[in-house]
């Protein structure tokens, strides 16, 4: 309905292959970014930033990573949390052990370490598929849990692996206030989202998807499963790892291994399922959904119960949360395996064809 595509013809492949081929979309995204960078800092209060927006941004980044592995390359993982942990603690070590190492650098190094670990735990994927692989990734999860809990060296001898960082500076920019943190994460996310998009729309992305859709055929046309899968693990873990560093350094600023438990892994997996497997967009939808849902439930369930004279305890709410999550997962797997992203794109198609149904 809002689309006017007449005259938007492409005279070069470059124009035809750009990320947003339709002008209206380009405007929309520009507007969105402007609002995110300028509007929100002006309008939104600290609580919202701390409780929703910053977690949303960081988890989106992690979800992107998970989506690359699960959604694009079809390799299921239940160990995402582990790689967040690796990222966070690795960055922590670089941060404290190497004097004057720029923060950005230690973040990236954290990510790279995660990538390395990711590759290692990805090796089984060359032999096994589906749930067997899930087990392998779980192994990673439990191993890292243990390492950061029990091996003091990694946590600078902090008891039970709880560490903390303070006065973060990036290129002289003191990241103190929630707004700073928000902007930093936003900037980081935008860049990484762009990288992710670029990879998924070029050769490497096609390799991943080929492996996902039909691995035998992929091999026959000259795609090396080894490279495709391990690169997916590496990139994914890198994204997740950096997300971990942001989560630790920026969001929590003091944390312990529990912050990256197996529950986190599941949470991330759910994000990509609900948000949309194999869709960059989807990662954001999923993250937003899972960040907002609990808060929404907290707000509305008691009130809702009130209507029927039922008082719902906070415990009750958290139980309800479990139920709702579980139910949603099942719902999406059954009804819309491609998640919110698919709903979104169908809606968009409808708008483009409006007033026709198809």
């Amino acid at each position: 309905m809002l689309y006017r595509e007449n005259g938007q013809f492409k005279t070069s492949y470059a124009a035809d292959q750009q990320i947003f081929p339709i002008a209206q979309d380009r405007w929309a995204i520009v507007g969105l970014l402007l609002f995110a960078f300028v509007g929100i800092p002006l309008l939104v209060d600290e609580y919202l930033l701390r409780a929703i927006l910053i977690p949303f941004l960081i988890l989106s980044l992690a979800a992107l990573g998970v989506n690359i592995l699960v959604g694009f390359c079809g390799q299921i993982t239940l160990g995402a949390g582990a790689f967040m942990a690796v990222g966070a603690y690795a960055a922590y070590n670089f941060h404290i052990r190497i004097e004057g190492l720029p923060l950005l650098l230690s973040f990236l190094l954290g990510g790279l370490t995660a990538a390395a670990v990711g590759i290692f735990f990805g090796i089984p994927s060359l032999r096994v598929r589906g749930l067997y692989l899930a087990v392998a990734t779980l192994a990673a999860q439990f191993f890292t849990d243990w390492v950061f809990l029990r091996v003091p060296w990694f946590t600078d001898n902090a008891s039970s692996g709880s560490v903390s960082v303070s006065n973060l500076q990036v290129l002289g920019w003191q990241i103190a206030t929630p707004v700073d943190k928000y902007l930093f994460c936003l900037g980081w996310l935008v860049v990484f989202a762009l990288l992710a998009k670029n990879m998924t729309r070029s050769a490497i992305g096609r390799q991943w998807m080929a492996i996902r859709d039909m691995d035998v055929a992929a091999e026959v046309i000259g795609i090396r499963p080894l490279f495709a899968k391990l690169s997916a693990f590496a990139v994914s873990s890198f994204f997740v790892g950096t997300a971990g560093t942001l989560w630790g350094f920026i969001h929590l600023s003091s944390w312990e291994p529990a912050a990256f438990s197996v529950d986190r892994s599941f949470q991330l997996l759910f994000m990509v399922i609900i948000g949309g497997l194999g869709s960059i967009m989807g990662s954001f939808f999923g993250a937003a959904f899972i960040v907002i849902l609990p808060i929404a439930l907290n707000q509305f369930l008691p009130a809702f119960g009130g209507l029927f004279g039922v008082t719902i305890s906070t415990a009750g709410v958290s139980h309800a949360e479990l139920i709702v999550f579980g139910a949603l997962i099942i719902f999406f797997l059954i009804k819309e395996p491609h998640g919110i992203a698919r709903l979104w794109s169908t809606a968009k198609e409808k708008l483009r064809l409006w007033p026709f149904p198809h």
Partner: protein
Amino acid sequence: MSRQIGEVILDLKNVSLSFGGVKALTDISFDVREHEIRAIIGPNGAGKSSMLNVINGVYRPQQGDIILRGRRFSRMNPYEAAKAGISRTFQNIALFKGMNVIDNLMTGRNLKIRSNLIQQAFWWGPARREELAHRAKVEEVIDFLEIQHIRKTPVGRLPYGLQKRVDLGRALAMEPSILLLDEPMAGMNVEEKQDMCRFILDVNDQFGTTIVLIEHDMAVVMDISDRVVVLDYGKKIGDGAPDEVRANPEVITAYLGASH
């Protein structure tokens, strides 16, 4: 015809293959000459598909050699085969359902991609240039197969006949020197079959591609192929020009035997 058949480029020697005791191929030998269209026929379960899968290394034969342009592979693997210029289509179409036609064909260009992951991530000079260059190549294939109108349709939504065509397209995008076709016309209606025949002949003729195809439809095979191998229960029972093969009593019985 301007094309002339050349030297032997692919030679299979005494290939035997079995799955956990079940013999799929027993001591099969035949050769393929450059630029020719070579058919493998035989009743169901004769081991035709297994034969192709051996040629491009999806299956590893227990015995036998594959000699490709004088290079000897005791066990080919799909990646090696692809690098050596062998591409193939699949009997039960093995397209990448999650991608549209262009991307499916682009995967066929994979071996020719030089840029690395980092460059691609930043959509940076070489990566970008390559993308555009390969897109141009892919568009030529699209044009060749006359599938312009479905260029951006997800392959999952395509009717069977068109999927087959895209499958061929993906193989062609590799610019192969040897093309393996696994029942390219299975389940097609007459006019789809005619189109497919035309494309196969055009490919062989315009690009000089050597073609090894498996096909059920005897009529088609006899029309388009230069030489035919006949398999039955994993054994070779005939080999030669279509007419010889047609005359071969063993072949006839095999087919009669298969057709009740």
